[in-house]
C-alpha cells in the first residue's frame, strides 16, 4: 500500500510516459492542473455525481433497511435486496446501456409506447450524470441497506417496546429512536459510500466514455485516459494525488461533522 502511494507522489513531479525513464519537472504538473479547465470540470462533474448518487442511495437504503428490520424476519427476503450487488459493475452498466438505448432499448420502447418522446439517457448532457448515478444506486443500494440494517440490529428492541407502550406510531419511533441511535453507523456508511462514489469509473467507461463532450468526464476517467490513453503518467499521477487529498479531507470533515466516534446509546 505504502510503496505505490509514495511512487505515485514521486511520479506526480515528473514527466513520465511509462516506457522511457521519468524526468523531474518539479511543480509543472500541479501548475498545469490548476490551469486545466477540463480538470476543474471533471471535479465539478464528479461532485455532482456523488451528491445525486449518495443522496438517493442513502435515502432508499435507509427505507429498505427499516423495512427489513420492522416488516420481515425472513432471511431470503432480506437476501433478495443484495442480488444487484452480485452483478459486476461492468455487466450492470452494459445491461442498462441496452435497456436505455435510444433506438433499440426496451426502456425507450416503453416511453414511446406511453406516447412520450424518447429520452437519450446516456447521450444527452442533462440526463447523463443522473442516469449513471441511478444505475449505481440500483447496484449498491442493497449493500448499503445491509450495512444500515446491521446498525439497526444494535438498537435494543426494548426501546421500541417502551415507545409502543407510550403509544408512539411507527413514524414517530423512526424519527425519535431509529434515526438518532443510528447516527454512528450512518456516519460510517456515508464515509465508505462517499469515498467509493468519488472513484466512479467503470460505469462511465462502459456507457459514455466521458461524453457527451465533457458532461460525464469524471475525475477517475480523466485520470485513466490521461495515463493509458495519452501516456502522460506524470500529470495523471498529480491528479491522482489531488483526488487522494480531496478524499482525505472529505473523510475527516465527515468524521467530525457526524461525531462518528461517539454513540448516543449510553
Amino acid at each position: 500500500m505504502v510503496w505505490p502511494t509514495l511512487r505515485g507522489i514521486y511520479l506526480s513531479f515528473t514527466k513520465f510516459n511509462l516506457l522511457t525513464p521519468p524526468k523531474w519537472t518539479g511543480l509543472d504538473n500541479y501548475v498545469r492542473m490548476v490551469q486545466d479547465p477540463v480538470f476543474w470540470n471533471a471535479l465539478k462533474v464528479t461532485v455532482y455525481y456523488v451528491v445525486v448518487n449518495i443522496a438517493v442511495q442513502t435515502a432508499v437504503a435507509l427505507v429498505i433497511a427499516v423495512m427489513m428490520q420492522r416488516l420481515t424476519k425472513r432471511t431470503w427476503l432480506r437476501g433478495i435486496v443484495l442480488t444487484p450487488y452480485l452483478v459486476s459493475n461492468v455487466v450492470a452498466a452494459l445491461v442498462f446501456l441496452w435497456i436505455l438505448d435510444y433506438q433499440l432499448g426496451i426502456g425507450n420502447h416503453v416511453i414511446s409506447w406511453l406516447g412520450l418522446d424518447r429520452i437519450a439517457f446516456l447521450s444527452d448532457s442533462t440526463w447523463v450524470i443522473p442516469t449513471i448515478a441511478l444505475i449505481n444506486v440500483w447496484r449498491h443500494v442493497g449493500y448499503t441497506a445491509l450495512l444500515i440494517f446491521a446498525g439497526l440490529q444494535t438498537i435494543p428492541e426494548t426501546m421500541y417496546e417502551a415507545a409502543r407502550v407510550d403509544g408512539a406510531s411507527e413514524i414517530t419511533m423512526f424519527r425519535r429512536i431509529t434515526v438518532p441511535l443510528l447516527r454512528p453507523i450512518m456516519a460510517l456508511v456515508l464515509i465508505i459510500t462517499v469515498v467509493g462514489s468519488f472513484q466512479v469509473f467503470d460505469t462511465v467507461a462502459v456507457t459514455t466514455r466521458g461524453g457527451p463532450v465533457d458532461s460525464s468526464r469524471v475525475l477517475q476517467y480523466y485520470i485513466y485516459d490521461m495515463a493509458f490513453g495519452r501516456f502522460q503518467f506524470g500529470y495523471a499521477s498529480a491528479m491522482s494525488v489531488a483526488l487522494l487529498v480531496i478524499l482525505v479531507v472529505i473523510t475527516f470533515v465527515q468524521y467530525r461533522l457526524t461525531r462518528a466516534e461517539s454513540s448516543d446509546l449510553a
Partner: protein
Amino acid sequence: MRRLLAALSAATLLAGCGWGGADAATGPGGNGTIEYWLWDSGQQPGYQKCADAFAAQNPGLKVHISQYGWDVYWSKLTAGFIADTAPDVFTDHLAKFAQFVDLKVLRPLDELGPTSDVQDGDYQQGLAELWKGKDGHRYGTPKDWDTIAIFYNKAALTAAGVDPAQLGNLSWNPRDGGTFEKLVAHLTIDDKGVRGDQPGFDKNHVKQYGLGSDGSGGGGWGQTQWSAFTGSAGWSVTDKNPWGTHFNLDQPAFQTTLSWYFGLVRKGFMPSYEQIGGANPIGPDKEIQSGIAAMGLSGSWMISTFTKLTDAAGKKLDIGIAPTPIGPTGKRASMFNGLADSITTLSKQPENAAKWVKFLSGAQCQDIIGHSGVVFPARPEGTQLAVAYNRDQRKLDVTPFTDQVKEKTTFLFPVTTNAADITALMNPRMDAVYIGSAPVSSLTTLNDQLNKLFEVAQ
C-alpha cells in the same frame, strides 16, 4: 471487525489488480511461435491462410493470430508494452504509429535482414512512404489500403424514384449543398411519409434519414464523416503531410464545410448524436440495415459487412456503391489510408518476426487476401484480385473506391506526432459541434490547442 476490514481491503486490492495483467501466458518467447495481432475479425480467416502458408514454407516457425475489437486492441497493446506481453508483430494504424515510434516500441524494419529490402514501388503509390518515421526509418510494411465511397440501399432509391446512375454525378457546395443535398433531402422521410424536399416535412420526427452518420469524426480526421467534403473543398488538415508543423482547423474552407455538413442534422436529413447512440454509436451499416438511413459514407474495408446486411425477415439487402460527390474544387476527394504490419521492440525473435512481416507484405499473402475480397491489398496485383472477386462473386461494382486512386483524387491520412493528445482534444470538441452545443467557430480555439502540442515536445 478489524480482521474483516483487513480481509475486505485485501480483496479490493486483489480486485484492483485484475486489470491488464490477464494474458501473461500469450507473451512472446523465442520458441518459434510468432504472436500476431489484428483487430478486424473479417480479415482473420484470410490471414490465417497466410499464416498456414508461411508455416509450410518456414519449418520450425508458426504464427499465432489473436483478434481483439478496435477499442480493446489499442488498450491491450498499450498494456502489453508496459507488462511485456505485447505481440511480436501487430497490425498498425497511421493514426497511432508516430506515437509508438516516440515511445520507442517499434523496431526499424530496414535494420532487420528479411525486411531490409522492402521496395516502395511494389505498393500502390504513396502507401509505403507513409510508414517512414521522421528519422527516415521504415516502421511498417503496407498490407492494404482504403478509400471512402457512398453505400446506398437500392430499395430506398427505388421507392424514391431515383435512378442509381444519378449518384455517379452528384456535386455539393457549402452554400446550398448542391445536387447531393437535394438527393439527401429527397431520400429523407418523416413519420407521416412526407419527404424532406416536400412542404410540411417534420424534421423532428424522421423515420428514414437521407444520409446516415458515423459520428462527429473527432477520432480519425472525419475519415468516414466529413473528410470527403473538406477534401473536395481543397482543404488539408496540416500544412504538409506527413509530419505537418501546424493545423488548419481555423481556415474558412474547413469551417464552412463543417457548418454545412452538421447543418444536415439541424435540417433533419442526418441523424443526431443522440439518435445514433452517443458514445456507443451504431455506424451507417446498422443505420441502413434498420432502415434509419437510405445511404451513408463508409470505407472500403466495410464492403463485405455491407454486402452481408439482411432485413428483419432475414432477406439480403440490395446494396450499391457510389463515388463521393464532386466538391467546390471541381473534383471528388477521398482520404487514402492504409494499414501496415509493425514489429515491437519487445519481440524476442525480431528476425523471425521480420520473416513473417516480409511474407505479409509479399505477393503470395496479398494475393490470398485479394481472393478473400475483404480489403484491397497494398500491391496493385492484389487490388485487382479483390476488384475481380467483388465483381464476380458479389456482383458488386467497387470501382467507386478504386477510381479515386486511378484518377488521383485521393489525399493521404494525416500523419502527425502526439496522435493520442490530438484525439483526446478533438473528440469532445467535434462532438460538441455535432451535438450543436458549440459553434463551428469554436474549432479555432481547438486549432490553437493542437498547434501548442508542437511546442511541447513529448
